[in-house]
């Protein structure tokens, strides 16, 4: 098991190096001289020269790549051109909100989705099956940012029930929770639909498999057949999807954070894009990617915990 974990972690390193190289090369795609583009209207020759030297933009490509890699390893993601703060501190401030949003939306969605799907598979003729189909269609039909807009339209404007803007950080946990409901639902709907359909299909396959028939032939009680024997096999496909889901959520969070103007990594990146504050954009994306790669790693490893055959592949 340990060897498998090490193998997966080691495989992450070349991937991350590749990520850094791509992120680094993005600056070369920028039309015109990066420094003047970043400074925009405030670009005076001195400021441009000073920025060029600070960001080593004047050096040759490999040297700049070296500086960048070393910088990243030391945790120095550069300084925001716009606000002068260290990029890493900006991110540190914004990250917790996004993680809270991602965990709450994915967590709830996974929980509801898996239970709904499993139940629909067990009680095949019950109305739950219909609910799963509707929810999964809903999930497909409404991407997260459209859902956010509609939810805001209904629950903040027409039926002023829930707060529309901000993360309610000042009002303590209850206030933060109420501020979290709509954004988390917006992000979660798609996932409830997708996971419940995936879970229903895999649960149905598992329930028709030989080893479940064997358990029934030996009068193993229904409850342990469903909730232990079948569930552990049926949940395997959902785990790998949840690993990927974190990536989608980080993406989706960008919209939800902007619509509900909640602080977060997504909003930080987009605002930096508007302000052409490139170091912050670069740093923000790097952190989001590292989070995503870690999530996939955790999904792979938990995959191996559930399914023993994976380690010996």
């Amino acid at each position: 098991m340990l060897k498998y974990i090490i193998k997966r972690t080691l495989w992450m390193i070349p991937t991350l190096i590749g990520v850094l190289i791509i992120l680094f090369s993005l600056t070369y795609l920028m039309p015109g001289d990066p420094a003047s583009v970043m400074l925009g209207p405030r670009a005076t020759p001195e400021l441009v020269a000073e920025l060029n030297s600070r960001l080593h933009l004047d050096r040759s490509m490999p040297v700049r790549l070296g500086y960048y890699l070393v910088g990243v390893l030391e945790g120095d993601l550069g300084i925001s051109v716009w606000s002068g703060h260290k990029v890493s501190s900006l991110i540190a401030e914004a990250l917790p909100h996004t993680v809270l949003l991602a965990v709450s939306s994915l967590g709830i969605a996974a929980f509801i989705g898996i239970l709904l799907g499993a139940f629909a598979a067990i009680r095949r003729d019950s109305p739950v099956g219909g609910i799963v189909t509707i929810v999964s269609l809903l999930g497909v039909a409404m991407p997260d940012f459209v859902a956010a807009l509609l939810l805001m339209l209904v629950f903040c404007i027409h039926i002023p029930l829930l707060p529309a803007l901000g993360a309610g950080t000042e009002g303590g946990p209850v206030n933060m929770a109420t501020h979290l409901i709509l954004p988390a639902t917006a992000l979660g709907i798609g996932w409830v639909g997708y996971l419940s359909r995936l879970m229903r299909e895999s649960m149905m396959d598992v329930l028709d498999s030989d080893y479940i028939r064997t358990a029934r032939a030996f009068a193993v009680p229904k409850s342990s057949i469903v909730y232990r024997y079948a569930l552990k096999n049926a949940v395997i496909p959902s785990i790998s999807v949840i690993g990927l889901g974190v990536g989608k959520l980080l993406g989706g969070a960008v919209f939800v954070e902007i619509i509900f103007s909640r602080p977060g990594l997504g909003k930080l990146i987009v605002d930096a894009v508007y302000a052409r504050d490139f170091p912050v954009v670069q740093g923000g994306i790097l952190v989001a990617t590292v989070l995503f790669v870690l999530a996939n790693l955790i999904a792979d490893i938990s995959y191996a915990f559930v399914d023993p055959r994976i380690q010996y592949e």
Partner: protein
Amino acid sequence: METQIRNQFETGTKTAPVSLKRKWPDKLRVIFSAVVKVKGALWGGIFVSMMILCAIGAQWISPGDPNAQDIVHRFADPSLKHLLGTDYLGRDILSRIIYGCRIAVLVAFGAVTISSIIGVLLGVAAGYNEGKKIDYLIIWLFDIVRSFPQIILALAIVAVLGPSLFNVVVALAFTAFPFYGRVARAQTLSVKESDYVKAGEAMGLERRKIILRHITPNILAPVIVCLGMDMATMIIWESGLSFLGLGVRPPTASWGIMLRNGYKYIQTSAWMILWPAVAIAIAMIAFSLFSEGLRIALDPKERER
């Protein structure tokens, strides 16, 4: 020598020579009838073709000019004159939605075609020489691009290249090609090991012919199904980028921009958000149902069930 076979087993009357395979119109009829049989795929197909129709013939279909402003009647509710009402500049929402189809279909088809071509070529190359250096290199490339949360990378690329229709397509294609690459590679691996490929080799078929007649058709079908599903995702991302103001430049009519304006005036008018949202929802459901039907239709085994 062939005559030897023929007269050895020639029994019964000379029946009219049977063609070796169904002709093309015949094949399309079979695939179409299979798609129709799948629950919901028919509706999916109808709405997808309606969208494509609107995209091509927007100027004939749409009731009015999408950019014609009529400030006096702005934020109008749906009426006979403006079936879906007007936006903050008094422009007819229905016309803008129809023109919006054009952007959505254009971007979706553009991004999907580019990313699938690159993805499939790399995927087949990697799958075909499995275990060699090139295979590891391509997998490495796929893993890198796949590690980025897709929308965030697309957003960064557009920000760097500057927002325009072409840049959006490039950004979306670049972030999506590993999705096809991995499917193509997995298919190549499984098809390569199959007995019908071995049968081709055992028959003395040239390498080129085996790839053309046996490997490619069995890889394309699953990839085509991915195209269907990915079209839906591309439409979401196009409207997402436009919503962030990083997609198509206003005033061109795109669902994302309509939602962006809708968000600005969310207090005053609900229509500006509602109708584009409905359009996106219909497009999404249509594409996913249609690609589900396609998946069953293209696979001869599923078709029988």
